[in-house]
């Protein structure tokens, strides 16, 4: 028998009242995975499962090409934007350079942890948006890419 909305609510209620943080339930008919999110004071709210993001290999959310044919590579995390591996080294990419989805385009530093960011899309770098060593926010545009 499939789960009804009522069943799901009941399960959520039981988990809410317990100190469990995660429940994985699998039967022949259904599989249910519930993760209780972190919360501040007040009533609990169910939250989606947080994604693991290992440092050093950050997936890059790239927006689809817009009207002008440019795709945007956005910051996968907040941190300090570095165009090169180290001071004095050449930048990972320059305007006009061809990139593949797995080309490293920059580094974002969070508390001394260096996270390399890949292009995510193929194309040609048309613009570098932030200045080197600038604080970038989560989701902030980093590069514009002319689609291949």
């Amino acid at each position, binding site marked *: 028998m499939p789960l009804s909305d009522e069943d799901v*609510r009941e399960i*959520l*209620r039981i988990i809410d*009242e*317990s*100190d*469990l*943080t*995660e429940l994985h339930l699998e039967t022949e008919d259904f599989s249910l995975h519930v993760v209780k*999110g*972190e*919360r*501040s*004071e*007040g*009533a*609990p*709210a*169910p*939250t*989606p499962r*947080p*994604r693991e*993001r290992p440092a050093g290999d950050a997936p890059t959310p790239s927006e689809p090409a817009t009207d002008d044919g440019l795709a945007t590579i956005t910051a996968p*995390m*907040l*941190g*300090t934007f570095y165009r090169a591996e180290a001071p004095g080294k050449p930048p990972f990419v320059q305007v006009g350079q061809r990139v593949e989805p797995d080309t490293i385009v920059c580094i974002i*530093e*969070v*508390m001394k*942890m260096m996270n390399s960011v890949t292009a995510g899309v193929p194309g040609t770098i048309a613009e570098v948006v932030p200045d080197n060593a600038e*604080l970038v*926010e*989560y*989701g*902030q545009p980093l590069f514009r890419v002319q689609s291949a």
Partner: protein
Amino acid sequence: MKRIERVFVANRGEIALRIVNACQELGLETVVGTSEADKSGLAAREADRAVCIGPAPASESYLRDDLVVQAALGTQCDAIHPGYGFLSESPKLAIRAQENGLIFIGPPPEVIELSGDKLRAREEAARAGVPVLTGREIAPGDDARKAGDEIGYPVLVKAAGGGGGRGIKLARDADELGNLVSLARSEAGAAFGDERVYLERFVANARHIEVQIAADEHGAVVHLGERDCSVQRRYQKVIEEAPAPDLGPAVRNALTAEAVAFANAIGYRNLGTVEFILDVDTGKHFFLEINCRIQVEHPVTEAVTGRDLVKLQIHIADGRPLGFAQGDVVFDGHAIECRLNAEDVARGFMPSPGTLSLFAVPENLHLRVDTALCAGATIPPYYDSLMAKLIGHAEGREATIDVLQEALEELDVEGVETNRMLLLSVLGHDDFQRGGVTTDWLERAIV
């Protein structure tokens, strides 16, 4: 001497806005770190600057001390205010801030650590001469039944890493206790990363009364009176008030003196709250826990003392002396706070996130409303369901109840379910109006 000029606000919702406003009044600049879900929130709009620190889930934004500190440094802030919840009670943020030359607006890391360890806090309280309930730690291999028999039933099983009403189980008899202890231990390990549990005597008819304290970095400690937070549902506060109704001067003096003594004994700094349980059958009181942050219910204390507690936190963190003595703290009138939550009371208090098509709070000289919401705002599903705090302040308790009843009746809210009717039922109930209800009252009498 430290000097705070730009404050990073590591929180969201009404408390983030509250901190921004306090900073503005002090002439300080503010930067709010928001998740993606709160980018267009009122706190972000009011601040001098807002930076998006991560995606909506708190575990990827508001709970990331590394991102918070990086963002504070990157925006040239010199202090971090953690608000309540999230990273406010974790020593991680305080330590990382300190390591990076930032002022953490709160107690030092070792005090936060002690506050988070409910078992150690109990021991420290007892050492400072503050009465604690009979209880003790149950280590793996200990005979829980024997300990339970000695304390008497029912007995509470509490997680050392819990607090704030979390990680508590009630065992009615020895059999139930035997089963609960191992379950409690594994749940505590998963939820708090700390498997230690302890037993504590259960008080059937109890009131929750807490004392607001303030300690500067030069050794001065004062109290700012008590709050009664007995109207609770599943250990979560719904309505709070100051002063506690019908509290005799002897009990009030004992509670406040013990709170100050305890704060002195553990080297407390900045604002804190010492929570007590008052056994109404015997009139005896006992230490419960200490909270090392600004409380949700701080406005009732602000109302009756006329002091701005968020400004006081910043003032203390800046290294300045309190600037007033115990004798300067005077109390005026009665204040009650109602927590308006986006929740569906009829459906088991399910959170009710959504977009507010209408949200207008009435204006009244005796009413303060702390909220970061307005019509058109969205209550995201990722966080707690607190929408607004309505604080009434009038000369007497009855008049204060009137103010809140009127405010709740006039409140316009559409788009989400709220607990407004529940709040009105409490305010209008004879037991509440008489004053001095116990912590199990709300669930017995109304819910």
